[in-house]
């Protein structure tokens, strides 16, 4: 990496180091009420964490909490530019450079400390990579690390990543998926036991907040690491409180029992938050997308599907769905109709991407042309006595998808398509989707900052993975391959957009909704900004002015 690229980071870095020095010089003494730092952020969440060992945590609450306790080598900045190195700012690594096209060298911040006081060293980084890749740990992040051959320690503060090949998102892959873990606390535990070790119940990290306590089913508390090497966070504490019911969570928020909620999908609940004098809605770009994928092959991936094998029928169905109405009904005016398997948080998003418009008349014409004719008895279509009927698999755990399915069902009925719903509980749903045992499936994805994940969903290569519908298009494959290799975002964008356009044109799926992402945050918090992929990424900079503090801010 050229120094010019690093300059802006260095200036910020010096400031941070300066702060850190100040913080470490000042003996931690009881703060007076008027002091600049202080405050408690109470986050309401509908689910408890499972395990606070980052490679193993599977639920969002775990990721949120681990995000504050642990740190990465470098942090993505808020525009989520995963391609250019300029999209990252230093964290545990205060700088990095590309030694050659497949070698990336990180220089650790010598002041970085684990919460137990032990310094963070290169060996920790290499150890962490090993843990994430260990088959016995079976981390779900390990596929994201496939392009990294190895990680080696050059000296105590220098760690080297070796890649199999050159590509623009090397820094992203090296830093984003893995949190650095404390080797000195974990290397005595057999890899197979790591996920279940006591560490996952009382983790020690190097992030801006240190773990305090966890009452199962009730809540988790972390407190500011006052001697953090990047400067202590403004807030004293962050607390997660589990409120399993969403409506109740919003009410608890309105009643002042909490300060923040990550997402409020329903319009009427957002209106209630808006009406509250204490709360503020902070919208941020959505990184979620939900879509109905058609199974192009027969059940269990055998043969060709009798309905969805036909591109025109798929197109008719897409045109028969009024996606805008679905989104309005589910989310109100703020909901978004996705342009493809992407979301506004990704840098490839564009409203200009080719899409099939809602056109029930054209849909009917297409179906007529393919021989699916309306029978007078009930207005449904059939061909040679076979009704135009299919089953949509969806998980009972997702309220939004169930609601959307009910809406789509009624819309398709209007063009003579009989869609049956098969709600399954999540484990069963996942099993059936992995077995490709379905006609159509209602998927939902939380997208990474990088668009490469799209390949898993619709690329031919992904057929082994989450491309459950077995969609295959050589045009799409070649366009995405070129996009991935494009050295800059400017070069990559048109390629991605074109690829998604082919997906739409082939009607691989009905891209139904992107839930609007709006956090509700109490007004007393200042400096609130939200990074769409990790809504708490900047929480260390949130603060509460002394005069606005509540009793719980103490």
């Amino acid at each position: 990496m050229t120094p010019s690229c690093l300059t802006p980071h260095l200036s910020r870095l010096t400031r941070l180091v300066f702060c850190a020095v100040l913080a470490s010089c000042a003996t931690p003494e009881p703060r007076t009420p008027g002091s600049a730092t202080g405050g408690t952020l109470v986050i309401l969440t509908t689910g408890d964490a499972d395990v606070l060992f980052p490679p193993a945590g599977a639920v969002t609450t775990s990721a949120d909490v681990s995000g504050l306790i642990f740190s990465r080598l470098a942090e993505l900045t808020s525009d989520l530019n995963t391609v250019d190195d300029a999209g990252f700012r230093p964290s545990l690594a205060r700088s990095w450079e590309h030694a050659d096209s497949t070698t990336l060298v990180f220089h650790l911040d010598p002041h970085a400390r684990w919460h137990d006081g032990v310094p963070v060293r290169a060996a920790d980084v290499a150890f962490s990579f090993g843990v994430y890749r260990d088959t016995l740990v079976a981390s779900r992040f390990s596929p994201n690390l496939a392009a990294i051959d190895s990680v080696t320690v050059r000296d105590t503060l220098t760690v080297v990543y070796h890649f199999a090949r050159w590509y623009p998102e090397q820094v992203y892959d090296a830093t984003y998926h893995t949190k650095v873990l404390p080797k000195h606390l974990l290397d005595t535990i057999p890899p197979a036991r790591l996920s279940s070790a006591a560490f996952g119940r009382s983790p020690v990290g190097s992030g801006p907040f240190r773990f305090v306590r966890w009452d199962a089913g009730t809540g988790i508390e972390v407190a500011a690491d006052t001697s953090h090497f990047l400067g202590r966070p403004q807030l004293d504490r962050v607390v997660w409180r589990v409120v399993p019911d969403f409506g109740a969570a919003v009410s608890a928020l309105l009643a002042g029992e909490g300060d923040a909620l990550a997402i409020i999908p329903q319009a009427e609940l957002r209106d209630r938050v808006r009406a509250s004098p204490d709360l503020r809605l902070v919208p941020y770009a959505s990184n979620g997308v939900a879509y109905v994928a058609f199974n192009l092959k027969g059940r269990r991936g055998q043969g060709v599907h009798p309905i969805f094998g036909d591109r025109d029928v798929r197109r008719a169905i897409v045109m028969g769905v009024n996606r805008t109405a679905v989104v309005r009904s589910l989310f109100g005016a703020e909901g978004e109709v996705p342009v493809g398997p992407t979301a506004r948080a990704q840098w490839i998003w564009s409203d200009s991407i080719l899409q099939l418009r809602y056109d029930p008349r054209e849909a009917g014409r297409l179906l007529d042309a393919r021989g699916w004719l309306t029978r007078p008895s009930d207005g449904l279509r059939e061909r040679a006595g076979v009704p135009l009927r299919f089953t949509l698999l969806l998980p009972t755990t997702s309220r939004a998808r169930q609601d959307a399915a009910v809406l789509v069902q009624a819309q398709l009925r209007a063009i003579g398509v009989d869609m049956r719903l098969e709600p399954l509980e999540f484990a069963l749903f996942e099993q059936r989707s992995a077995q490709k045992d379905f006609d159509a499936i209602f998927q939902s994805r939380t997208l990474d900052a990088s668009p490469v994940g799209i390949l898993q969903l619709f690329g031919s290569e992904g057929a082994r993975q989450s491309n459950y519908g077995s969609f295959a298009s050589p045009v799409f494959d070649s366009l995405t391959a070129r996009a991935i290799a494009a050295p800059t975002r400017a070069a990559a964008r048109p390629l991605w957009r074109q690829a998604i356009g082919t997906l739409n044109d082939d009607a691989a799926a009905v891209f139904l909704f992107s839930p609007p992402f709006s956090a509700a945050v109490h007004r007393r918090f200042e400096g609130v900004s939200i990074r769409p992929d990790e809504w708490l990424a900047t929480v260390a900079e949130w603060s509460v002015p002394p005069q606005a503090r509540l009793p719980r801010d103490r």
Partner: protein
Amino acid sequence: MLTYLVRRLALAAVTTAAVVSLTFALVHLAPGAPFLAGAEGRFVPPETVERQRRSFGLDQPLGTQFVRYVANLARGDLGESFSRRRPVADVLGDALPNTLLLGGAALVLSLVFGIGLGIAQATRAGTWADTTLGALSLALYSVPSFWLGLMLMLVFGEWLRWLPLTGMNAAVGAPATWAGRTFDVLRHLVLPALTLALVNGAAIARFHRAAMLEALGTDFIRAARGRGLGEGRVVLRHALRSALAPAITLAGLSVPALLTGSVLVESVFGWPGMGRVAYEAIFARDYNVITAVAVVAGVLVALGNLLADVGVAWADPRVRRR
């Protein structure tokens, strides 16, 4: 006494064994598999799933797994939770006290409410007050508990803002003192405990009213009045003591329902108890947790019966023999 204990324990053992075997079979034979769920819309590679299955011995034949499970169980080892990555005993250890708190409070409240209502009705038998209270207890007996919970939450939590909506404590901002924390938990306890107690208490009231009525018509009550005892003493000491058995039996039988069957109320009020653990475990196919819940349920049933017997024996010396 000894034969009684042996009989009870034998029944408890058979029941628990039946529940555990049944649960084990159901869970393992059912479609769906663990480790797929909980990934929140992210892809879990099949290799990962397979490795995790192996690490928990799920690739073994079912018979082998069962034998191993029972052997571990005999040693007091409930295994490890798949989804929570910790010993099942710890998972239950976190949830059980909460459930005991809620269930215990509900049990006490439902006894107080049921017996109180029964007395109030029986001493006013035939009056409009009896009829009104009877209608109330019938309504509460017939109401779906989860719906009653929602309505109580709507009225007292949302409209009146008297009580917190969900959860077990304020989590934060929690008062620092022990007394303050206790008060905080109690405030959260009110609505869920009340919901359970009203429904359960109504059932008790229906039986207790009849028992009280019978007791109040007995010769010994007339005799007690004839001795110049005050009405309060006659009703609360003489009649109540002799009429307690059905209420206690019913309360004892409701122990398992209050503790494991309160899934609905726990889910309405976000109470971090056994019901929720069981519910979540079932959906995550967390076999060890599910089976452990079955063990606990079996034990609780036995415990409930035992409690009922002890309670009845306490109230009625006639059954103390044997």
